[in-house]
């Protein structure tokens, strides 16, 4: 009863009532709200890195090289005396940008092709389906390594490699969703009243498979961050002196025992970012009731 009174008192104040509802939401969905909160912070950092970084990430300083974590250099410094903390901040920006652009490309291309393939079927479906199966048959990392290796290591090619790797994932999800929705009576009825294919696809099928696509986007985004990190770690992504979370780890690799902080902190940041996105994706998968769409 006492609790309830407190709630009632606060209702007059708009901000407190917002806080209360946030708190209630947090209690109901702890993983989702924790995930969104951290993801919000990470996004903020990567949009405004200047406000968070304390040094220029590319500024070398021979007198401060190989220093462990301290008050001035939170995460220590690397071989060239660059501040790891600032490099991690800017690296997060690079990694998130690469991941979001490449997943965006796969989302658009993959779901467009999937919609077409699932809706029209026939020979288009056969050809596209085989093509995607072939891309799908190779492990993601291997394919990305080969594509960016052949095209030459650069940021642009890494984005392209990741986009190619994840297109079949969106294709499959969009295609199976489209096939399931196309069989529903409401699609048939709109066909009967003379709706065009374009209208059926855009107004009826796409909104119904969007939940599937949202979950797939979240999951792919998490994997894309890992993939970008792996590519940069192998020297096939972002080129020096620009930092990316993977390339900082690559710089630190020869000095693992000597300067472990170069390897520990960027890894933790990758881990945390991917973990919160996976938490969000996993919860969305449960909440949006994906199984209803496919079966």
């Amino acid at each position: 009863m006492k609790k309830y009174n407190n709630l009632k008192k606060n209702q007059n104040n708009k901000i407190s009532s917002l806080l209360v509802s946030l708190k209630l939401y947090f209690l109901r969905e702890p993983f989702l709200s924790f995930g969104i909160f951290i993801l919000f912070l990470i996004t903020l950092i990567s949009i405004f890195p200047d406000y968070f970084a304390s040094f220029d990430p590319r500024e070398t300083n021979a007198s401060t090289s190989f220093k462990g974590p301290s008050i001035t250099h939170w995460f220590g410094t690397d071989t060239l005396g660059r501040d790891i903390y600032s490099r991690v901040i800017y690296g997060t920006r690079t990694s998130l940008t690469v991941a979001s652009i490449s997943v965006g490309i796969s989302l658009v291309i993959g779901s467009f092709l999937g919609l077409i393939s699932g809706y029209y079927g026939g020979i288009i479906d056969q050809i596209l389906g085989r093509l995607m199966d072939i891309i799908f048959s190779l492990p993601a990392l291997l394919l990305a390594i080969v594509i960016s290796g052949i095209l030459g290591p650069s940021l642009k090619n890494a984005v392209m490699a990741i986009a190619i790797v994840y297109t079949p994932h969106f294709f499959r999800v969009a295609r199976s969703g489209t096939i399931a929705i196309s069989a529903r009576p409401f699609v048939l009825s709109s066909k009967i009243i003379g709706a065009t294919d374009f209208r059926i696809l855009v107004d009826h099928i796409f909104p119904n498979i969007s939940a599937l696509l949202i979950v797939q986007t979240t999951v792919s985004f998490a994997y894309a961050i890992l993939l970008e990190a792996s590519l940069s770690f192998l020297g096939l992504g972002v080129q020096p002196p620009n930092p990316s979370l993977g390339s900082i780890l690559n710089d630190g690799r020869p000095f693992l025992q000597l300067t472990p902080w170069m390897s520990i902190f960027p890894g933790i940041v990758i881990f945390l970012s991917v973990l919160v996105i996976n938490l969000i994706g996993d919860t969305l998968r449960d909440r949006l009731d994906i199984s209803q769409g496919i079966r």
Partner: protein
Amino acid sequence: MSYYVIKRTLYGLVTAFGLVLLVFGLMKLIPGSVVNQLVDQSAGFDQKKLAEIEAFLGLDRPWYVQFGTWFRDFLMGDMGYSWRSRIAVSQLLGPRLFVTLELAGLATLISVIFIGIPNGLLAANYKSKWQDTAVRVFSLAALSVPVFWMGSMLILIFSVYFNWSPPLTWVSPTDDLWANISMMALPAIALGLAGAAPLVRMTRNSVLEVKGQNYIRTARSIGNSEIKILFNHALPNASIPIITSAGLQFGFLLGGVVVIEEVFALPGVGRLLLQAISQRDFPVVQACILTIGLFLIFLNIFVDILYAYLDPRIRFIKE
């Protein structure tokens, strides 16, 4: 059953042929001509000489003729020669394939037996309790750790606390089994942890599905203990999807092997591939990706057929 086997195999062969075509096509995307890659730019060859080399290598013919010749050689096991070391690619690849397969196999074993099944059973047995949530967070965390970072951290921990460092030369298990295992253990753990999440989920869901069946209720009503029901009735019946997803997981782990081999300096296909990419040694790149890709396609065919064989319901639906 035989209809299903034939259909699945033919389907796989089409995909395999497509892959071969795709990899051949990828090599044509290489910026600059192959001859330019091959000859030393400083040697001062004139255009005529370059064209002669191109004709000698058969690069002036149309692409389908080139593909035909290359594909015929490939079917006979001749994957060309390395541009850098002049060694036959198949000779380079052979011993390294064993290392990669051993690593992926050990990692799959770890992720199924030590992580996937125990955690999945725990989560299924305590559905919607805190144990279930803990397993879920743990498997999501395992999914989120970059494999190469996990490898580096394991090296760091073991070198600081146990004075261990990754050995420089690889020992075959037939020479010294213990040395081989102690070398492969850490990379296999790092890799197995990364691949465990789908197995945990699969085990949990299929055990839960089986636990809702009537025969489980019957087993419980005649007085079997929960543990006995779980291990004697639920797990065996839930094992078919677990086995097949373990097969698919093996394929996924083959991808992760590339980075982990680099971190632990193991002489596998992945390291060969990375080395070939940095030296722009394209016949080797081609052979590495084709070997792993084709291996995966045939593994998938095998897993699908095994699934149909173990579970008759699948093959009747699919027929």
